[in-house]
């Protein structure tokens, strides 16, 4: 982004950010209307950006197909699926039509659920690595995790009623304290980054490296 356009983008960013912030702090109908419009614009621009995404996909996979690169049939499947989805939406006139809903429920939902379900296996493999007692920190993690598992699993209370209580103490005191400290830090960090973006010190969100 050239200098002049970056300055224009920075100025727009400053005005828009302050409007949204002021709308949150001050109750004013004009400001509220303006902030609502700006938020709607963001959604509309986001929808336009989807076109850029589609162009990028077509460019990349069209290149793969034309070169008969490795696994090119998958690129064909992707582009055909994309065309079928768009055509179904346009022909039926709604993404809640029975036809569109059928495609979504029959193909997207099962695949998404399968991927989500894989998390269970990934958690097992990640836990195995994390709970190897290689250092004192890992030992603390392992001990805390064992007590928390015994708190949540019914067998913990069967072995001894004290075990779930230890887990509860770890969760309510160590866990909650650490979590709150983390959240305070994240809030302050977000404010600092937002401030740097608003005053034009951080330019990467505008798309230009310094």
């Amino acid at each position, binding site marked *: 982004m050239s200098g002049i356009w970056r300055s224009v983008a920075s100025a727009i960013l400053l005005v828009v950010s302050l409007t949204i912030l002021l709308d949150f702090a001050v109750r004013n109908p004009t400001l509220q209307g303006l902030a609502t419009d700006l938020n709607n614009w963001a959604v509309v621009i986001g929808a336009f950006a*989807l076109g850029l995404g589609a162009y990028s996909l077509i460019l990349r996979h069209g290149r793969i197909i034309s070169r008969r690169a490795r*696994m090119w049939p998958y690129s064909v499947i992707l582009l055909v699926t994309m065309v079928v989805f768009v055509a179904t939406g346009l022909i039926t006139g709604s993404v809640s039509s029975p036809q569109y809903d059928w495609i979504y429920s029959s193909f997207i939902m099962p695949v998404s659920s399968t991927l989500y379900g894989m998390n269970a296996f990934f958690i097992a493999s990640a836990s195995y690595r994390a709970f190897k007692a290689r250092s004192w920190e890992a030992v603390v993690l392992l001990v805390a995790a064992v007590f928390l598992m015994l708190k949540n699993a019914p067998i913990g209370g069967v072995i001894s009623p004290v075990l779930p209580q230890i887990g509860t103490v770890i969760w309510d005191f160590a866990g909650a304290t650490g979590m709150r400290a983390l959240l305070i830090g994240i809030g302050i960090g977000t404010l600092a980054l937002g401030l740097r973006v608003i005053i034009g010190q951080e330019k990467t969100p505008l798309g230009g490296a310094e």
Partner: protein
Amino acid sequence: MAGKLSWVVITLLFSVLMLVALYLASKKIYVPQIREHAGIQAISEAVGRAAEMGRPVSFSPGTSTIYDAKYAGDTAAALRILDYVARQAVKSGSKLIVGIAQPTVLPVAQAIVKTVYTAEGKPEEYVEGDTVRFFSPDQWGFASSYVGMMYREGVAANFLFGGHAAEALVLAETGADVGAMQVSGSTNVYQLPMFIVACDYTLIGEDQLAAAAYLSPDPAQKGVVFGQDLAKLVCVALIVIGALLATMGSKILSSFLKS
């Protein structure tokens, strides 16, 4: 709405603290010394390792949009880190692959990476549609595309920043499976444990946000990090004073925070 007055006062106070710290640093009146962060140092180490192995570097700036109310800060920080990673990759001669989930992030990421390649004198190495790849705005569509890319390309370094949700563990575990050195960052407290167990280094919470200032070529930007620490000190003071006042039966502070 309850809490607005206190929100305005605290936001203004913290903003002033950060701006003063930034001003002092920019005028070289007080430039804070910031400790070396192992996670940030590991970024160049991971890119260097990929260059030695002759394998690509992959980067994800998350699945959140650039205007997301909760994770826009993460996306902005991830884009700053992307700028740094791209620079390191070009300098070391590693192939960079950026996987994008959100269409609004795509043009920004493309502009950043393209500018870096041009600035480093290697514009021909930036391939439109290939260096920065749009995968899918759907969470699992993105996850499956990114996982497939990591396996097919055999990445040696993987960077996961920005706002990630349930797909975080799938991406990080796959990275570990392909033998990539991984550096991640998140402010999502539910996904942080996933990154911590599966990645070599993780920028926890505000570390990722501070990395944006840390990696800035302008040393004065580190002043903001000092300002953040001052704000945290104020928070600690408020917690101690609030606990003491509550113990004595006073509700002045809690009433103010609810006002």
